Structure formats: structure tokens, C-alpha cells
């Protein structure tokens, strides 16, 4: 377990994905590795990490075939395991630092789960891609940019929130702490609406769905970065919501549109990373990491869609959000309609997003096998513009009236994260609040009574052990907050 050795002390976090069914022969161990971060670690180190994980998994499976290893707590590291798909494991290794932050294991697992869910949504399962090309080039070509984009995605968020959440800090991957912001992975944040507005919204939802004609389509409506309405299944709602908050909300869009220079800066940033990866790729055989990102014109063996890439969505004149991410050719100007996979129904769907002021509508239309999909989508778009624009205006007006400022839905003076595990709904104090409070202010105070569903229970923080962000702290938060019945 050389992980604690001084040489890797600077690596706060390692993240790997491997397939237990591969590379079982002597000498082919490298086949197992589907993704490893940081990529510049020598293979021997990578293999030793994976070997340890694999060993533990095999060992624990003897006792618990269904759910094998979840966690290794070493003296200086925590290894978090997540079996994303049968025999495909994601392992995150987090260094325990001297400060008080003890990562909440469940939260770390949720990060892994979130990445995987997003991957599923855009690319389908890892196993399917592996079966498509057993050599593994395809999956690696997909996984690497996707994972890197995801890590950068989080980084992108933070400057706007005034808190530094930098997954990728130089070489280092740092996890944000509760100080930075409050968030629970795998939940959605809902906007509270009045009955009147809710009826208006539902009326709009019905109208939108009727725009797609007879085909069953779904919709998701966000106001700012809060969810207003959904007709998707809970799983898909969470995925699409996560993506929308990362890439589609007015905040993320406007930043992309408003400043071209910013985009440039972003791309130079990525080329820096590219250079960095390239520098190390000397030690990495080419077939393992084919990065279209790093070599845009070069050895582009696979066409890889990178949905998490930053600043690629913009608002067209008609209000619809467009992107070139899904373009058939890397350089072509025609932008294809984005597609996603729904987990619930395992259907391939077109993704249409429309934005009107703070309101973001996401329409998910099935990829019909008969009709020309692109035509269908443009038809739907036209229908939406014709029929629903008035209603959208109304809804936006109603919601903004109930909105009233950045922190209006927030219990002022406190910092909190409230999670309803039944409904996968969370409610956090707004990010702007975060840095203004010190830890002392949040101790042992009843801060809110009665969340949405009418469940009445006092909410309190038991110990200074803090609040959960994506990945922090104590394990029993939910129990404290959710005195069931």
C-alpha cells in the first residue's frame, strides 16, 4: 500500500475506473484500467491501486456477494468504492489531511454515482461501450474527456459563487469542503411555488407536452437553478437537473455568451491541461488515452461527444439553447440536436432546451425511428414557440413575482442543508451566504420548522461536525434531520 508514501503525498485525490472482467491474464493487467486520475502516475502505481482494490473486492465478496467492499479506511487515506455497473468499479482515494474535514463517505460515493449517472445519460453504459469495442479504446476515449470535463465542471461553478471550489487545482484534485458551499449530490433543489403559480406551471407543462403530438415526451422546468416542475422519473430528473444546473441555466449560459474572451481563456486553459497531458502521454501508450480534446486535428480515431464541455451552450435568437457539442463532425457548423438516454425507460431522447429570462424549459422528445428526428424536433420547437410562448411569459411573470430577490426562498440568518430522502429533494441556504458565516453561528440551533411536505420536525445541527456539501463530513446527517414520523 504505497499510497501513503511520500512520493504521492501531494496527490490529494485519486480516481479510477476499472473492469474486473478484463486483464485477468498475466501481463495484460493494463487492460483493466479504463480511467485513472491523475493520468500521469506511472502505471505501476496505477496498477498497485487497482490491484489493492480488486483484491479487497474479491475478498469481501466471499462474505457479501451482493454488496462487496464499500470503503477502506487507511491511516492517511480513505478508499471509496462504488460498483457502477456489474464488475465495473469506480474507486476514489482521498487523502485525510490534518484539518478537521472528515469526508462523508456517502457523499463521496454520491459523487461517483453522479458522474456515472451523467455518463449513462449521455453515452449509455460503460459495459455497452466495452462490448462495442472490446479493445477498450472507445470507452477510454469517452471516459477520459468526460471525467475531466466533469471535474472541471465543478471548478467552473465556484468562481461565480465567490468560493473557490477547484477540483482541478494544477495537478491536484481538491474536494470542496462544507465551507465552500452546500450541496447534496443526487438531490434536486425545488422552488416553492404558490398554488396559483403551480397550476399555471402545470398548465404550461401540459401544453408543452401536447406540442410533441402523440409521442410521449417529458419536460423539466427550472427557474434560475431551482426545479419547478418535472414529468420525468426521479432518476432522470436528478440527472437532467444536475446537467441543467451545470450547463443550461441562465447563469451558465450568460457567462458563456456575454464574454467571448472568457471562452478563449477557457480554451487556452484547456490547452494548458492538454499540453500537460501530452507531456505525460509519452509514457502512456496511445491506445489507452485517445483524447480528441488534446489533439483536435490529430489522431481522432473516435468521435466523442463531450456534453460537459464548458461554454458550449448558447442562446439562439428564438430562445432555444443551441450547442455544437453534438455536431456530427468536429469542425462542421451544423449543430445536431443533443440526445440523451433515459434511465427509466432506456429510450434515446432528443433534448430541447428553451430559455426565457430566468425560466429554462427542457423538453425531452423521443428519437422516433420512423420520422426524421431533426424534423420532428424543429416541428416541436415551432409548436412550442407558437402555442406556449404566451403561457411561458405568464409563468415567468408569476414565478418572478414570488421570487423576490436572490435569497427570498431562504431562511435568513442561517446556513443549512435540508434533505428529504424520500423525495430526493434538498434545500440549502444560497451559496452567497456561505462565506459570511462562521462555524460558531451554526451550532445547535433550531433553524427551520416544517419543510414543504408539511413534515414537522425541528432541524438542528448536532455537532460542529458540519454540514454536508457534495462530499463532507459525518455519516448520520440524515438521521438527525429526519426523525421519521
Amino acid at each position: 500500500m504505497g499510497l501513503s508514501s511520500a512520493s504521492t503525498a501531494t496527490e490529494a485525490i485519486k480516481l479510477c475506473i476499472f473492469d474486473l472482467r478484463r486483464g485477468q491474464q498475466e501481463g495484460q493487467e493494463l487492460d483493466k484500467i479504463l480511467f485513472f486520475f491523475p493520468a500521469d502516475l506511472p502505471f505501476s502505481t496505477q496498477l498497485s491501486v487497482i490491484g489493492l482494490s480488486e483484491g479487497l473486492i474479491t475478498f469481501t465478496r466471499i462474505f457479501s456477494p451482493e454488496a462487496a467492499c464499500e470503503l477502506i479506511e487507511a491511516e492517511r487515506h480513505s478508499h471509496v468504492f462504488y460498483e457502477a455497473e456489474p464488475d465495473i468499479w469506480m474507486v476514489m482515494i482521498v487523502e485525510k489531511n490534518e484539518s478537521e474535514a472528515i469526508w462523508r463517505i456517502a457523499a463521496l460515493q454520491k459523487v461517483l454515482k453522479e458522474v456515472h449517472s451523467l455518463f449513462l445519460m449521455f453515452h449509455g453504459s460503460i459495459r455497452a461501450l466495452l462490448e462495442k469495442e472490446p479493445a477498450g479504446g472507445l470507452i477510454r476515449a469517452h471516459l477520459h474527456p468526460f471525467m475531466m470535463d466533469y471535474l472541471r465542471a465543478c471548478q467552473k461553478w465556484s468562481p461565480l459563487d465567490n468560493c473557490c471550489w477547484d477540483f482541478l487545482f494544477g495537478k491536484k484534485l481538491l474536494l470542496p469542503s462544507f465551507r465552500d458551499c452546500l450541496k447534496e449530490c443526487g438531490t434536486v433543489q425545488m422552488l416553492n411555488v404558490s398554488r396559483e403559480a403551480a397550476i399555471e406551471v402545470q398548465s404550461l407543462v401540459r401544453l408543452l407536452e401536447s406540442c410533441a403530438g402523440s409521442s410521449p415526451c417529458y419536460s423539466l422546468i427550472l427557474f434560475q437553478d431551482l426545479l419547478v416542475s418535472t414529468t420525468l422519473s426521479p432518476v432522470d430528473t436528478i440527472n437532467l437537473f444536475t446537467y441543467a444546473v451545470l450547463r443550461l441555466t441562465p447563469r451558465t449560459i450568460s457567462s458563456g455568451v456575454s464574454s467571448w474572451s472568457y471562452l478563449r481563456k477557457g480554451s487556452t486553459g484547456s490547452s494548458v491541461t492538454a499540453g500537460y497531458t501530452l507531456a505525460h502521454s509519452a509514457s502512456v501508450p496511445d491506445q489507452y488515452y485517445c483524447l480528441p480534446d488534446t489533439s483536435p486535428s490529430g489522431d481522432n480515431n473516435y468521435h466523442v461527444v463531450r456534453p460537459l464541455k464548458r461554454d458550449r451552450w448558447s442562446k439562439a435568437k428564438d430562445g432555444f439553447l443551441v450547442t455544437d457539442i453534438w455536431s456530427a463532425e468536429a469542425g462542421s457548423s451544423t449543430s445536431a440536436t443533443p440526445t440523451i438516454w433515459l434511465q427509466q425507460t432506456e429510450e434515446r431522447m432528443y433534448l430541447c432546451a428553451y430559455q426565457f429570462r430566468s425560466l429554462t424549459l427542457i423538453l425531452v422528445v423521443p428519437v422516433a425511428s420512423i420520422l426524421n428526428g431533426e424534423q420532428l424536433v424543429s416541428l416541436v420547437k415551432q409548436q412550442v414557440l407558437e402555442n406556449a410562448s404566451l403561457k411561458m411569459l405568464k409563468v415567468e411573470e408569476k414565478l418572478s413575482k414570488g421570487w423576490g430577490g436572490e435569497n427570498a426562498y431562504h431562511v435568513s440568518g442561517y446556513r443549512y442543508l435540508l434533505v428529504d430522502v424520500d423525495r430526493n429533494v434538498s434545500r440549502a441556504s444560497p451559496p452567497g451566504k456561505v462565506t459570511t458565516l462562521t462555524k460558531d453561528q451554526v451550532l445547535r440551533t433550531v433553524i427551520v420548522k416544517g419543510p414543504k411536505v408539511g413534515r414537522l420536525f425541528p432541524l438542528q445541527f448536532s455537532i460542529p461536525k458540519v454540514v454536508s456539501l457534495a462530499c463532507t463530513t459525518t455519516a448520520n446527517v440524515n438521521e438527525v434531520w429526519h426523525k421519521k414520523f
Partner: protein
Amino acid sequence: MSGKASSSQSSVGLSGPGGLSHVYIQYPPLQCEISGSRGLFYDDGNKLLLSPTLDQVFSWKTMPFSPLVAPTSDTISEGPILSIRYSLDAKLIAIQRSNREIQFWHRETGETFSQSCRSESESILGFFWTDCPLCDIVFVKTSGLDLFAYNSESKSLHLVETRKLNVCWYAYTHESRLVLLASGMQCKTFNGFQLSSAGIIRLPRFEMAMAKPEANSKPVLAAEDIYIITVYGRIYCLQVDRVAMLLHSYRFYRDAVVQQGSLPIYSSRIAVSVVDNVLLVHQVDAKVIILYDIFADSRAPISAPLPLLLRGLRRFNSSASRSGREDIESSEANVVSGNETITYGDEWIFLVPDLICDVASKCLWKIHLDLEASSAIAASSSEMPSVLEFLQRRKLEANKAKQLCLAIVRTIILEHRPVPMVARAMDILVTNYSHSIKTGSYLKGIKSEKTSPSTVPHVSSPSAVAEVTASRVGALEKSVQHEFAAGVDSELFNRSSTLLSSDSEDNAISEPQKTNSSDIHFFYGKVDGENLMGAETSSTDVQPTSLQHQLLGPSNNALNANAPEQQEAQLTSPAISPDQMYSFIFAPIEEEMVGDPSYLVAIIIEFLHSANSEKVKVHPNLYVLTIQLLARYERYAELGLYVINKIVEPSKEVALQLLESGRQNIQTRKLGLDMLRQLSLHHDYVLFLVQDGYYLEALRYARKYKVNTVRPSLFLEAAFASNDSQHLAAVLRFFSDFIPGFQSTSDHNTYYRILNEMNSSIAA
């Protein structure tokens, strides 16, 4: 309900050359044949048809209209009669004997007196009684108005006031209390007075527009070209412009007269009637009627011009009894009957508002509006929501209008018309309902129905009621015919000798013709089916009997169907309450609809939207239905949103449905439990907790909220089922501690023994 009339009528539409009609007159008319009659007069103040003979005057009440009404007679003296009117209290008869003298008759005592012009230069154009507090009778003379008050003691008139004006001719209707006095060379300058119970209002002088046929010719406006009509409580004057072939309309306000636009006319002779606030313009030469609903600004006709239909003329004219109320209608009835009924003959005089007097054959017809037909015709040409609006404004046959509205809404939903359109329809219905609640007309209708079913306070004539009844019976029976073998048909046919089932006979006859149907007919057929369904769900006693009755006998049926119908027919407003929306629209549709419920949910949302904006409360069953729909298609995410956002308002019914639907979805079930607790339905909450196996939580909750209505054995059973002796012991202990005397109950003994066994088995 619309069933019968429509079917029989459309069959006529196919067979007869007259085609479809939206306006009809009902056979038989009121016969006013009196030997020695010296003309017919209509007294619109008392709504009497008067026929004077040499020394008597016969009067028929036309309100409520009934062809069987017997005349009353009064003795008068001989002499010429230019005009005759009863006083409003019906104590006096005033007879204009010449253009200088009016004679008065005291009906009880037979005393007479007369009043004549003073000056030689003036002559009396006419007179009318008024309920104005100042005076009782007004003489219209060429020199102006003379207002007289009647002194009952001195039995004479005394002059109260004179209004000096030059008058060529005048127009007056009692309905509007408005007298228009024409003056000027062309008789197109008008002075108006309204002599209402509130006093006398003088309208500003105004001129009517007249097109000139040539540059220097000046047409003179005739009295026949002016119609004063009252629509929706507003007073209009319609003026025929023969040159321009236009019907100009003017609306009277207290201090202004405003021209409202013009309607085209297609006949040199026209007449105007108002039925239930719908303006009927008879194009006499073309023998067609155009309907206008001048409520909104639109001057478009409701429907295409269609002929007047003579309805109910029996083939066997000998039996002129009232029982033959339906159905063999034919616009060419005049040919068949040999009776001298010729529609739009020269002898027809149109009386305001809705009567036709046939001077030649001495009969009086009442004009009816066929709501089914007119709405169907309107539906074919215009937008459905405007048809609904039209129907919602009908007062005379409120129940029929209401049923039609329900049928229309059901149809458009079943046909999956676009949501915005249905939304507009919902909006119209809800707005109208809330309006009628505010003005009280809806409640009034209900109340009068309950308190005084015998008095018939409003206008609906008994014939209309009877007709509605018949139509419903017809619809029911007809539909049953569809289901039964043809033998039943013949049986019905045989029974036709009895009076009550005469309409079913007609149905049987019209049935074969129904088969070669047109588009419009198809629409009807649909309405029929739905109506039947509505009847089933609404009046439960109608539905089962109608079936039985096919076998038992017809008389019974008519009676049964009558009972609920008669009450409903007395509604004064066609407004539809949310409860009725649920039970007549959503509930039946839900049964019929197949496939994806999202359309119906969308409609419900639109309905809730309208109801919310009008602050109208919605029946909890509608929420229950919504939940069922969503749960059936496993759209739990939306269901959750609906509950959380309180789109579905919390109630016990809703909570129970959530619990029921939540059997497949735990989150939904929890929503139901939460709702129960929020509503403080502690007993149910505890019960469901126990059912779900959370018996310890249930106990805690029961203790906290002092719920002692749940049987202890339930908790004990649940604890026993969990097979945990500690829990069972705890529950036993709980009851022993908190329920006095529990230790002596059989429950305690049973479970105490069980507990001991459990413990001993563990020990062993």
C-alpha cells in the same frame, strides 16, 4: 335533454324539403275563433289576446302560453273599436272608439265613462296603461302626450301632465316601457320617454339614419319599420332601412342613444321577435329566420338562415289533445293537414316579443327556440366556446341549455380537441357559474325549486317542461332499443296506443330514418349516447327503471322520468357548478377514455386554473380522479408535485386515495399519510400507521394526540405479526398502563398468553 328532439328533427331534415330549423312553432296554436269577432287585438301590458264581438270582448291569456286556455269574456257596449287594452290591474277596459274619444269600462260594476280630446286640431293616435307612479294611462296624440291618473273614487281620469310635441306616429312596448314618438317630414326624428315604475325619463332627441334612393327623394319612415326590443335587459330600437337593406340598431341609455351597427336584411318584409334574449329576424319573403345574439359586440349571426318549422302537427288532426306533443314535424305540414297554416302568410302579425298572430285563421303561435338545433348549427359554423357562451346566456330553457353545455363539453373532450380551446370552454362555464353565484341567480334557481315547486315563478311554459321530459324519456328508451332485440321495437310500437308512450312510438318511427345520417346527425347521435350516460350517473332512479320498464309498461316510465326532470327544468340559470362538472363531465368521460390520461389531466388542470382564478371551490372527487389517473399511468413524480404544490387540495378523500394509489409507490403513500396528519385526522392516521406496521410510532402518536378510538387488538396483532416479543410486551404494557380495565379484557388475556408462549419458546 337533447336526445329526442334532435333525432326526430334531423330525420325531418333529411326527408322534408324544409330542412333543419332552429326556430319552431308548436302545434297546436291557441285558437281564438269567436263567431262575430270584429278583429283581434293584443294587449301587451297584460299579455292578453283580445277579440271583441258586437257586445262582448273575449280575452285569452298568452302568458304562460297554452293552447288550451279558455277565454274570459266581458260585456261591452256596441260601437267601433280602434284599439282595446285592459288596465294593468285588469279592473278597467279602455276602448278607443274614434280618434277623439276613449271609452272606459269598469269590469266589476259595468260603469263607463269616456275621455276625449279637447281641441279640434288634435287626434288620438293611441294609448297605453302604465305602471309609472305619476299616472295610470297615457294618451298619445298628434300634439304630444297626455298623462292621466285614474281616480277610483270619482271613477274618472284627471290630467296630470302634458308633453307638447308634434307626433306623426308612435311605437310603444310595455316590456321596455318606452314610447318613441316620430316627427318631422320623414318621420325620422324621435323623442323618447320611458315611463317606468321609477318615473319618467326623457331620452334625448335623435334622428335615425335613412339612405336615399335618389338624390332628392326623401323616404318616409313608417311605424312598421320600427321595433323596440328588449334583450338582456337592454333596450334597443331596430329600424328597417328599406333602401339600404339594412336593419339599424340603436341602444338606449339613460342619457344617450347610441347607434350600434347594422344587420343586413334579405327581404323587403321583415319581422323581429325576441325569444330568450335571442334576436330573431324573420326574412318574411324568403321565409327564413336569422338569429343574432347581440350580447357581445359581434354582429355576426349565430347561424345560417333557416326556415321556421311547424312542429307537432299530427297526422290525425281529429285528436287535438295535448298529449300529442311530439313529433311528427314537417315544415310542409300545411300541405298535409289541409289546415290553413301557411308560414309567413300575409295575415301573419308578429307580436312583441315572441308571438305570431295569424289573423286569417284566428290562431296564435308562440315562437320557440330549438336550443339543440341552433347550438348544433352554430357549432358547425362557429367556435365551440362561443356556442357555450350563447347557451350559458339562455334563461328560458335553462335546464336544456345546461344539458347541452354538458354534452358539448363532453364531446369536445372526447374528441380530443386542442387543449386551449377546451380551456376556454371551461373558463366560460366556470366564469358563468361564479357570476351566477354572485348575482344569486344560481341559488335562486335552486331555492325556488325546493320551496315552491308548484308556483312556477318564472316564465317556462308547461309545454316546455313536458317536452323536456318527453325528450329524456325518448333518449333513454331509444338507447335501450339499441341494446334490445328488434322485438322490443315492435312492442314499443304496439304500445303506442297509450297516450304516454306516443313519443316512443315516434322514436321508433324515426329510428329507421336515422340510419342514413348526415354529419350533423352524427353529432346528435353522439350527444344522445352521452346524455344517456349523464342520466345514468345523475338521477339514479331513472336509470334502473328505464330498463325494467321496457318490460313492465310505459306509463310507469314516464312518471319516473318526470320526477327528477320537472325539478331540474325549473332552474333559472344554466350555470354549471363544479360538482356537476365533475359528475356530468369528468366522471363519465374518465370511464370512456382509453389510453394516455395526460389529455384529461391537462383538461382538469385547465379547469382548476379557471376555478382558481374565479375562487370557486372544486369537488374533492375531482382531485381523487386526478390522482387515480396519474397513478394508473405511474406518473408519480407529477402526482407528488401536485400534492406538494397543493394543486390537489388536501382533504380526507384525497388522502385516502393517495394511500390507496400508494400501494405501488411508497412516496405517494407517505404523502397520503402526511396529508392525514396535517388534516388532524388522528384516528385514520394511527390506523394507517398500524396497518403499515409502524405500530410503535402509532402508539406514540396516539398517546400524544389522545387517540383512543383505535382498537387495542389492532396494535397487538401488528406487534404479534412482527414476531418480536419485546415489542409485543411493550404494546401490552402500554395498554395496561393507559387504558383502565384493559387487563380484564379478552385481548389482554389472549396476548398475555401468547407472549408467555413466545418467551417460553425462546427460553427453551
